C-alpha cells in the first residue's frame, strides 16, 4: 500500500454527505441543503478516535456520472482523470434511505465503473417514521458491496461504518474504466439501471412491525403498494407548500420575505455598526491623547486603530446576512425561492439558480461568484458572474450610511432607513436593467450554447440547526476578515503615509495661537503639501465635472482596493481623530469642506447623491476582479466589468449631479 490512502466522499445533493464529513473530520461545515453549497471540495484527516490513516475528500453533490454543471464536471474529472497514484482507494457514496430509488443510480454507476465502493445509507430515521426500514444485509448482497446504515444526528451506525472502511482499505486498489462513462449516457442504459434499482428496492425495503394491527395491515400489502407508501413525499412539506408556494400568494410571500430579509439586516446591523464605530474612535482618541503630538501617535491613532475600525465596521452586516441566508437555506425555503424567481430571471438571460449567488452578492461578491458553479448553462453562469458586482455588497454599506447620514436632516433620523432601502431598491432595479441590456446586445460577449435548463429538487422543510447556521456565519465572516482585512489595513497605512509626508513637520507661525490651533494649522499645512494632494491635483480635472475635488478623488482611488476604504480615507484626509465619534466628526468636517479652487461647498445634496450612484455601479474591488478572472478562465469578463461598470458609474454620476443642479438642487 502507498503512503496515505485516499477516500472520496461522494453523493447526490441533500444525501447527508457533508454531515458525514463533519463527523469524520471534526470540522463543522454546514449540512448541504441547497445543491452545490459545498462549492469546492474539502479534505481532512480522520479524527484520531476513528484510527483510520487516510485523507478524506468531500466533493460537491453529484447526481450521476454524466456531469451537467461545472461543479459536477469537477467531481467526475477528479474521479477519472488522475494518475494511478491519485486514484481513490475507496469511495464512500451516500444515499438518502427515503430516496433510495433515486439515489442508488450514482452508487450503481460507481460500482459499474469499477471503483471500490462502500454505500452509506443516511436518514434512516425519516424512513423509520414512515414505518419502513432497509435491509442492509440484503442490499449489500444484491449490490456486491458493503452497506452501512447511519443516523447522522445521533451518530448511530458510525462504528459499523468505521470497521467497513478499515476492511475495504485493505483491498487492493481498484482502477476505474473511463469507457464506461459513454455507456452511462444512453437512454436505454439509464432506464435499465433504474429498473434494476427498483427491483433491488422492492426486495430491501421492509415494513417495521411496531404494533400488531399495523403489522397485519402491512402483511397484506403487496410490493407495488408498499413501494408507493415508502415513496410518498413528506406530508408536512406538502401542507406548508400549499401556503408558501400558493399559485398567487406564493410570489407575494416571496417578495415580502425578501423585503423582510433586507430590512432586518439594516435594523439589526445599524446599532452594532455604531457600537464598533464609537469603540474604535474612543480607542483612537485615547491613543492620540496619551502619546502626545508626534508622528507615531498619529500613525497609531489615524493609521492603525482607525484602519482596523474600518475593517470591523462592516462585520455586523456580513454576519447577519449570512445568518439569515443560512437559516433560510437550512429550512429549505431558498431552493423554493430559486424556483419562484426562475421565470422572471430567465427573461433577462439568467436562471433561477442565479438567485442564491445574487443574494450572497449582497454580503460579498467573492463567495457569490464561487457559488455560481451550480448553474449548468455556461452563458447563464457567466452573465450571473458578470452582474454580481452590481449587488450592493456590505462594503458599500459604510459609504451609503455616511452619505445618507449627511443627506438626512438631523431632526429626522428615521428618514435614513427609508433612504437606505431606496438605494438598495434602485441598485437592484439598475442591475436588472444592466443584465437585460448586456444579454440583449451582447450575444457575442458570452458565447455558449443555448441549452438553458432548470431542474431542482425542493428539499423537505426542516427546522434549521442553529449550531450549523451560527458556525457557517462565523466561518464566512472570519474568511472575509482574513481576506479583506489586511488589504484595507495596509491601504489605510499607505494613505496615512501619503497624507502625512513629505512635509511631516510644517513650519508655521506659532505666535499668539493656542496649542489646539497650532495642531489644526499644522495638519492642514501638512496635508496641503502631501503626496496625496499632488496625486489629487493630477486627477482633479476628471473629478471637477462631477462636482468632486481631489480629496474625494483620492478617496475614490483608494476605494478600488475595497469600497469601504472610501470612508476611512475621507476620515484620514480630513484628519478626524478628535471628538466622540468618527462619523459625527467626519460629518461636521464634510459640512465645512469647500473646493479650494472655486470656494464652493464640496459636499452638497447633489454631489452626495452623485457619489451614491457612483458606488452603485463602479467596479471597485480588486479581489472581485481576481476571482472573476479565475472563475471565468480569462481576463475578458473582469476587464469588461471594470470598464463597463466604472464608466457607467462616471456617466451616471455626471448626469445625476448635473440634472439635480439643473433642477436647482445644489
Amino acid at each position, binding site marked *: 500500500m502507498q503512503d496515505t490512502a485516499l477516500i472520496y466522499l461522494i453523493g447526490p445533493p441533500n444525501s447527508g454527505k457533508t454531515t458525514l464529513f463533519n463527523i469524520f473530520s471534526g470540522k463543522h461545515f454546514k449540512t448541504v441543503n441547497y445543491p452545490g453549497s459545498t462549492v469546492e471540495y474539502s479534505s481532512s484527516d480522520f479524527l484520531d478516535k476513528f484510527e483510520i490513516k487516510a485523507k478524506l475528500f468531500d466533493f460537491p453533490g453529484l447526481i450521476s456520472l454524466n456531469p451537467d454543471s461545472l461543479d459536477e464536471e469537477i467531481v467526475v474529472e477528479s474521479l477519472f482523470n488522475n494518475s494511478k497514484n491519485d486514484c481513490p482507494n475507496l469511495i464512500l457514496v451516500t444515499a438518502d434511505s427515503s430516496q433510495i430509488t*433515486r439515489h442508488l443510480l450514482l452508487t450503481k454507476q460507481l460500482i459499474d465503473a469499477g471503483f471500490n465502493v462502500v454505500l452509506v445509507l443516511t436518514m434512516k430515521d425519516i424512513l423509520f417514521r414512515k414505518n419502513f426500514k432497509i435491509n442492509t444485509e440484503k442490499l449489500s448482497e444484491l449490490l456486491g458491496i458493503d452497506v452501512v446504515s447511519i443516523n447522522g444526528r445521533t451518530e448511530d451506525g458510525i462504528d459499523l461504518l468505521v470497521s467497513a472502511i478499515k476492511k475495504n482499505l485493505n483491498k487492493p486498489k481498484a482502477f476505474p474504466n473511463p469507457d464506461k462513462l459513454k455507456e452511462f449516457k444512453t*437512454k436505454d442504459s439509464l432506464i435499465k439501471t433504474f429498473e434494476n434499482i427498483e427491483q433491488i428496492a422492492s426486495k430491501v425495503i421492509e415494513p417495521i412491525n411496531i404494533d400488531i394491527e399495523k403489522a397485519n395491515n402491512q402483511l397484506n400489502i403487496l410490493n407495488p403498494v408498499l413501494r*408507493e407508501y415508502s415513496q410518498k413525499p413528506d406530508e408536512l412539506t406538502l401542507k406548508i407548500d400549499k401556503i408558501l408556494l400558493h399559485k398567487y400568494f406564493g410570489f407575494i410571500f416571496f417578495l415580502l420575505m425578501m423585503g423582510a430579509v433586507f430590512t432586518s439586516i439594516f435594523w439589526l446591523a445599524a446599532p452594532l455598526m455604531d457600537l464598533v464605530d464609537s469603540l474604535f474612535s474612543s480607542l483612537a482618541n485615547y491613543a492620540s491623547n496619551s502619546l502626545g503630538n508626534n508622528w507615531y501617535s498619529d500613525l497609531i491613532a489615524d493609521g492603525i486603530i482607525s484602519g482596523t475600525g474600518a475593517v470591523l465596521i462592516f462585520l455586523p452586516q456580513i454576519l447577519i446576512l449570512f445568518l439569515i441566508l443560512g437559516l433560510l437555506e437550512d429550512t429549505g425555503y431558498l431552493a423554493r425561492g430559486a424556483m419562484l424567481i426562475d421565470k422572471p430571471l*430567465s427573461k433577462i438571460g439568467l436562471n433561477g439558480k442565479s438567485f442564491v449567488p445574487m443574494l450572497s452578492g449582497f454580503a460579498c461578491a467573492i463567495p457569490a461568484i464561487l457559488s455560481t458553479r451550480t448553474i449548468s448553462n455556461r452563458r447563464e453562469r457567466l452573465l450571473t458572474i458578470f452582474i454580481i458586482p452590481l449587488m450592493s455588497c456590505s462594503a458599500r454599506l459604510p459609504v451609503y450610511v455616511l452619505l445618507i447620514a449627511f443627506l438626512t436632516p438631523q431632526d429626522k433620523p428615521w428618514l435614513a432607513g427609508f433612504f437606505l432601502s431606496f438605494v438598495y431598491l434602485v441598485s437592484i432595479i439598475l442591475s436588472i436593467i444592466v443584465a437585460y441590456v448586456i444579454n440583449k446586445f451582447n450575444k457575442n460577449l458570452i458565447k455558449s450554447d443555448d441549452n438553458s435548463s*432548470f431542474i431542482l429538487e425542493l428539499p423537505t422543510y426542516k427546522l434549521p440547526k442553529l449550531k450549523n447556521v451560527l458556525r457557517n456565519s462565523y466561518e464566512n465572516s472570519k474568511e472575509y476578515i482574513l481576506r479583506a482585512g489586511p488589504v484595507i489595513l495596509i491601504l489605510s497605512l499607505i494613505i496615512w503615509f501619503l497624507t502625512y509626508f513629505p512635509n511631516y513637520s510644517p513650519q508655521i507661525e506659532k505666535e499668539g495661537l493656542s496649542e489646539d490651533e497650532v495642531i489644526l494649522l499644522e495638519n492642514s499645512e501638512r496635508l496641503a503639501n502631501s503626496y496625496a494632494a499632488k496625486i489629487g491635483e493630477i486627477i482633479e480635472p476628471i473629478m471637477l465635472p462631477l462636482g468632486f475635488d481631489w480629496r474625494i478623488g483620492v478617496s475614490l482611488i483608494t476605494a478600488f482596493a475595497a469600497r469601504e476604504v472610501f470612508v476611512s480615507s475621507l476620515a484620514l484626509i480630513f484628519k478626524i481623530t478628535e471628538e466622540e465619534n468618527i462619523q459625527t466628526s467626519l460629518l461636521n468636517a464634510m459640512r465645512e469642506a469647500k473646493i479650494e479652487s472655486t470656494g464652493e461647498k464640496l459636499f452638497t445634496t447633489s454631489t452626495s447623491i452623485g457619489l451614491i450612484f457612483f458606488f452603485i455601479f463602479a467596479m471597485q474591488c480588486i479581489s472581485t476582479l481576481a476571482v472573476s478572472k479565475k472563475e471565468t478562465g480569462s481576463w475578458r469578463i473582469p476587464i469588461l466589468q471594470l470598464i463597463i461598470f466604472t464608466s457607467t458609474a462616471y456617466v451616471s454620476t455626471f448626469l445625476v449631479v448635473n440634472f439635480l443642479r439643473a433642477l436647482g438642487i445644489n
Partner: protein
Amino acid sequence: MRKASEMNFGEKCIIKDINDMNPSYKRILEIGFTPGQEIQLVNTSIFNDPLTFSLRGTLIALRKNQADSIIIN
C-alpha cells in the same frame, strides 16, 4: 400524446416515455423521471413555470419546456 407540461394541478399520471430529442432528457431521466413512475403535479407558480412534480417521494421543480419531454399516459 400527452405531456407532463399539460397536466392539471393535482393530477396524477404514469410516465410512458421520455422524449430524447429534448436537450435535458438525460438529466430528467437521471433525477428519476423514468417510464412507469407515477408523478403528480403539486405546484404551478404564478407564471405557470417552472412546475413542481412529486416523484419517488420527493419534489422536483423543472421548467415547462423540460416537462414537455415527459410523455404520460
